[in-house]
């Protein structure tokens, strides 16, 4: 079920057809694998255990996003229940994630009891550690003070930091603070300076994973889905052979590959948002109740050393397993 890319005008290993093919599976259980600059896409339904084990992941980690604890409107009256289902999905993985990244909007209104409920739920995740970056919902009214006291004790500035894990350099960025009238997400001068220094001494072959709440590429500026100064941040990462950028905020899976950089957004654990421009506003989208769990989910990432391979798998709360799923439809172009 692999789709090796044959037509490509750019030296990035990706052509439009292959990219769209990969996009088509997004949100329904997709596996996109970068191997030596070639993007391959698989539907989870077409994979079996042999395919998964043959990837020989050096380690696996997971991403969850946009839990919005405290939200109780029509789009999902029980966001704590769906977060627990997302946790159950992570706990059922054959290879437990070594750590989990939560890419923000932990809470709906930055309230202490919302953070408490999140913490209580996340205690049951079978993983070594959970790393956080704030969403705009987590820094309301106090410029993120409570967020930093709870989740950013060892962080710099508004809550940014980096760490290394088995040779991969992870960078958590904050782009939801001090937003300017008419602007998008914002990293700001201090954080950019820190980032430049943080990666300056790393070897070019160090795999880089950047995670932040708002997308670090311009998805849809009319809805604020982008970050004003992300290009400057990415300019510091140009020298690296493999850069993966993981975001949340838009409550749907999107992926883009640009040169050495793979951008990926995760589903929410709380409620879906419309595709860009497909609704009057980006607000919570009400879907029929029986469909809700097909648009919420988690992301699992497997890293294979030496092959420049990062496999990103999105699976919805509805997917029961990687086996026995109904066949996926063909891509419409």
């Amino acid at each position, binding site marked *: 079920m692999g789709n090796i890319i044959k037509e490509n005008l750019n030296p990035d290993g990706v052509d439009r057809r292959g990219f769209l093919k990969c996009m088509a599976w997004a949100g329904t259980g997709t596996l996109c694998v970068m191997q030596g600059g070639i993007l391959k896409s698989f539907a989870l339904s077409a994979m079996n255990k042999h395919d998964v084990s043959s990837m020989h992941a050096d380690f696996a980690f997971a991403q969850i996003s946009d839990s919005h604890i405290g*939200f109780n*409107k*029509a*789009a999902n009256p029980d966001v704590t229940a769906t977060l627990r289902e997302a946790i159950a999905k992570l706990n059922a993985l054959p290879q437990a994630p070594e750590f989990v990244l939560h890419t923000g909007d932990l809470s*709906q*209104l*930055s309230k202490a009891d919302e953070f408490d409920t999140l913490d209580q739920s996340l205690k049951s995740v079978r993983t070594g550690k959970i790393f956080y970056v704030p969403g*705009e*919902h987590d820094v*309301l*009214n106090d410029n993120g003070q409570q967020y930093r006291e709870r989740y950013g004790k060892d962080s710099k500035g508004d809550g940014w930091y980096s760490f290394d894990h088995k040779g991969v350099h992870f960078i958590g960025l904050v782009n939801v603070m001090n*937003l*300017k*009238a*008419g*602007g*998008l997400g914002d990293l700001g001068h201090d954080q950019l300076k820190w980032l430049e220094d943080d990666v300056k001494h790393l070897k070019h072959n160090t795999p880089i994973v950047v995670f932040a709440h708002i997308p670090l590429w311009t998805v849809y*500026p*009319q*809805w*604020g889905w982008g970050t004003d100064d992300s290009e400057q941040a990415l300019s510091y990462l140009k020298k690296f052979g493999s850069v993966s950028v993981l975001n949340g905020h838009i409550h749907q899976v999107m992926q883009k590959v640009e040169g050495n950089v793979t951008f990926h957004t995760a589903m929410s654990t709380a409620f879906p948002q419309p595709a860009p421009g497909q609704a*009057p*506003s*980006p*607000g*919570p989208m009400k879907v029929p109740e029986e469909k809700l769990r097909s648009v919420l989910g988690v992301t699992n990432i497997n890293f294979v050393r030496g092959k420049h391979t990062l496999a990103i798998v999105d699976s919805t709360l509805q997917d029961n397993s990687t086996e026995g799923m109904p066949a996926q439809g063909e891509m419409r172009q």
Partner: protein
Amino acid sequence: MKNYALRIALCASLIAAAAVVAMNRPNYFVRAAEGQPAASTIVAVDNFTFTPKEITVPKGTTVTWVNHDDVPHTVVSTDKKFKSRALDTDEKFSFTFSDSGIYGYFCSVHPVMRGKVIVR
């Protein structure tokens, strides 16, 4: 004669009573003379948009913003003249504009949302 004097006394006391009432409630008469209740107006927040996006009001007007969305929004002056807390669904924020001028504002959570109050 006696009845006549009594009537005059009664009339006099009624006039005096009316005068006392008038003296005790001077504001009532002044307000009635001006006939100008304080102005107020509402800006709705719907679908990530301030509606109306731009309003023109006389000095002294109190503007109230009401959030009708399922997500929190704020009302923040670009010149730091006023700033609301995060408004959840149906929550309100009011500000009284005492001085004329042009007051731009935005939602600090979703900064693509902008509005303007023109005070004349």
